[in-house]
């Protein structure tokens, strides 16, 4: 199963779940905004999305990931709008029987997200300037 949310405002984490009988591995990734973007000091990032398409692509990607790696569930929240340094911009939870498929799925999911989901970062510099954050995939 997949759950996808694109949220404007702080991310509420998916809640704990001790009721699962067959999922031995719960893997969580939280992406946080760092104080430097391409060598430049920033105070925040502003995430911009292609409304509609971002949600569609993220949903499709999640479903692809669940099928490709035989994991049970993938939940993902991506924040848009202003995200201050230190705060969480991306929250992904993967449930699987064993850890290996969860780790592989997480690696692939985030790497694909950074290739195909139409979301962009604007750097907000210390002087208040707002510019598209250079560059792309890591």
């Amino acid at each position, binding site marked *: 199963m997949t759950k996808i949310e694109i949220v404007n405002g702080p991310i509420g984490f998916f809640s704990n779940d001790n009721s699962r009988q067959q999922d031995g591995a719960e893997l969580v990734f939280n992406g946080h905004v760092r104080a430097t973007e391409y060598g430049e000091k920033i105070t925040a990032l502003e995430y911009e999305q*292609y409304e509609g398409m971002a949600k569609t692509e993220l949903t499709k990607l999640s479903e692809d990931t669940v099928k490709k790696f035989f994991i049970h569930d993938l939940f993902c929240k991506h924040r848009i709008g202003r995200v201050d340094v230190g705060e969480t*911009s991306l929250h992904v939870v993967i449930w699987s029987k064993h850890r290996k498929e969860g780790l592989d799925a997480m690696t692939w999911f985030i790497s694909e997200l950074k290739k195909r989901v139409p979301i*962009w970062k604007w750097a907000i510099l210390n002087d208040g300037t707002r510019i598209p954050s250079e560059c792309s995939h890591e």
Partner: protein
Amino acid sequence: MIKVTIKCFSQVKYAFGKDELNLELETGTSTLELENIIREKAKGKLDTVSLRIALNQKYIPIQTELKDGDEVAFIPPVQGG
């Protein structure tokens, strides 16, 4: 003639200072021809930016003839995460 809407994001938005462009084009204009028009309009600001094309909110792998009412986006490298 056909009318198309161009959604602008990231460096494309920065280049034009606009969220959206509305253009009238010759019937039969392709997505690739539109990309050239857009790059020209940007006066060099998009020369170093690679762009993928989304037509009506879907990535398209090859050039396609545009139709009246189409929504087009030239997608700079994405940066989610």
